[in-house]
Structure formats: C-alpha cells, structure tokens
C-alpha cells in the first residue's frame, strides 16, 4: 500500500472479499434476517422501535435490500432497503449501521451495492431523505441535496389546511 501522497484520498470501497475476511457476510434477501435484532439496530441508532409484523410487511414490499451479518454473532449490523415502482424511481430507507460497527466502511459498502442493484434493474432515479447530520455520509456516495431546487416534502398529520 502506497502511503506517500495519498493521505487525502478517501478509503477504497470494501470489496466483497474484504468484508468476508473481516467476518461480515453480505445478504441480499430478508431470509435469515431476525427482525427483532434488526429492530434493535434501529433503536440503537435512534429510530423508534417498530412493530415487527409491520416491518415484515414493509420488507415484503421492498424492491431491494441489503444487510450485513456479523458472522460471529449471526446478527445484522448494517442494513438498507429501497422501495419504488421497479422501473423509474426508487427511494432508499432505513439505512443503519450498528453503532459498535460504524466508521469501518459497512454503511458505504451496503449503499454502494444497493445502488448497484437498483441500477441493474434499470432504475435511474434513486432518491432518499437524509437527516442533516448524515448529509456528509451520502454526498461522497454521489447524492446531491435539492438538485435544481427540488425539495423533499413530508405530509404533516393533524394539520388543517389553513388557506
């Protein structure tokens, strides 16, 4: 590995064999995914704990998903999924990495492969909603916020139309 003059280069993406050699298994289906354990990862990163039956429904209607299993514990430590219409648009949701396993390239590994999978299906429009503190995670992956002034909007419940 060449050290001189490469300090500012971002770390190279983890290849599948890199992950395997470090004890991480890449999974592309929900088979073998323990939803309670997944829920715990959600909670660990600050998401609300959800009804696992609902998570199951959501996963059944998900276009693509990827998760990383830590071989030693057989638990999920990273996850991301995408929904959409299967031809034009996809939105990526629930991108999580267990706090104990963050900062070692797992989130990036999951995202890169998920995007690859979506592209392989011919989907050109890949979007997501990012919390402000992780914009810096998505930008190096190729995501742009508010391109051309497009804004992400969410319906706020229990609000009267005041017009």
């Amino acid at each position, binding site marked *: 590995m060449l050290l001189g003059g490469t300090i500012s280069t971002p770390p190279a993406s983890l290849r599948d064999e890199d992950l395997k050699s470090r004890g991480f298994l890449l999974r592309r289906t929900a088979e073998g995914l323990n939803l309670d354990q997944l829920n715990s990862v959600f909670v660990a990163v600050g998401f609300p704990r959800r009804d696992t039956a609902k998570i199951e429904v*959501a996963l059944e209607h998900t276009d693509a998903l990827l998760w990383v299993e830590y071989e030693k514990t057989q638990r999920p430590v990273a996850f991301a999924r995408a929904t959409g219409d299967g031809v034009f648009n996809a939105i990526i949701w629930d991108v999580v990495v267990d706090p104990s396993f963050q900062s070692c390239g797992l989130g990036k590994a999951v995202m890169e492969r998920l995007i690859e999978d979506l592209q392989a299906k011919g989907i050109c429009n890949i979007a997501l909603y990012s919390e402000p503190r992780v914009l810096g995670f998505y930008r190096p992956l190729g995501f742009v916020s508010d391109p051309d002034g497009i804004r992400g909007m969410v319906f706020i419940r229990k609000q009267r139309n005041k017009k």
Partner: protein
Amino acid sequence: MLLIPTSSSSSSSSSSLLPQSFFNSNSYSSNHHSLFLPNLRYPILHGSRKLKTLRLRANFWESIRSGFVKDNNTTQLVEPPSTIEEDTEPLVPVEFTLVERTLQDGLIEEIIFSSGGEIDVYDLQGLCDKVGWPRRPLSKLAAALKNSYMVATLHSVMKSDSDSSEGDNGQKKKLIGMARATSDHAFNATIWDVLVDPEYQGQGLGKALVEKLVRALLQRDIANISLFADSQVVDFYQNLGFEADPEGIKGMFWYPK
C-alpha cells in the same frame, strides 16, 4: 416529484410546461414530476363552451357545507370540504364524482375521482404527451403503474341531458389527471407523477387529486407520506399540508443530471 411550470405560461395551455432543463436527460427529470398549474384563477373560456367553475379553497368549501351551490350556471359541487383531517373525515370512497356541471350545449360533464387504479396506459401516455413530458416506453409505464401502491385518476365523463340516466351509451370518458404513490405498504409512501390535462388546469383539480390521494393513504395507515417538489410547487404542497425539509431532513438524489 412535483413540478409547476412558470406561471406566465398559464394562458397558453398547450405550450410546453416543463422547463427545458428537464428534457435534457432521461434520468430523474423524466420520471418524477407532475405538471400542474394550481394558480386557481378563473379558467379561460374555450370557444363557445361556457364553463363556470368554482375555486376550491378551503374556506369556500366550508361555506357550502350543505354540499352544493346552485346558480344560474348550474354548476353543482358534490364534494364535502377539502381539508385533510384523517380522524374525522369519512372514508374516501374508491370512486366518486368530484364536480358535475352542465355545459352550454346541454352536455353534462362529470369529473370523477378514482383510486382504484383503473387506467389505460395509452390514455396515460396521451396525457403525458399533452403536458409535454418526454416519452417513456409503454411497457415501463405499465409496469410502473402496476408496481404503484395507489394510482389515483381523474376522468371527465360527458353525457347529454337526455341519456344521463342510462349506462355508457353516449358517454365519453376521458383521462384528465393522475397521481400515483409507491409504498412499502406499512410505513412510507411517496407520491410521484402528478399531472392534470392543461385544458383542465386552474380549476383546483390537481389539489383535489393530491388531497384525496393523501387521505386515502392515511386511511390505509401509512404514517409517512412524502414527495419531491420542484421549487415552484413547494407552496402548492405546503398548502396541502406538506412541509419541506422537516427538521432539516433533506431530499437527495443520486447523480442527478
């Protein structure tokens, strides 16, 4: 994503309604915007057809709680107030009449909302052509519709006074609007492709379309309803109860062109 063209084009309903930049790629630009001009001004009179429609503003609706207004122009509104209050509002029926009006030549026009997803893909392509969207392959359009969780449509049905009680005989049904949502059936739904026929814009139909779609989604217990709005339509969706960048959360796109 939802897009409103610059308002100066409102008087020429057949002009291109998309900023040129959106035609320059075949990636996100063609896939997720709607063309809608919700300026809610009084409509242009076309030819000999005298069409008087009413602005669908919330306070106006509240002022006609009885359900309809009768005036010389015989425009009847059959739709209750358009505020989105999911707890108290009645269930959105799959199909119902939004507006019914009598035209000068004795024809009756009904605008029918449906969330049943019955849509002819050729009609949709024709509508996309009318609003000036770049063409997308029919097979992909069909697949996108099939894979959508909910497809809401507006159809115009014309019938003459004499056969209003009969079936399809003499009725002309035309697709004039559509909006669809993708979803994981549990937590999130995202609205795409909201469009209204230019000849029917400016009447609040797009607003009604989105409103009913949102209500139908809420009634299916989808807690998170999102969309991507072009800068010119952010206000439009704000008025429907959407908030841009809630809590600083930003919409991001992968290598948009």
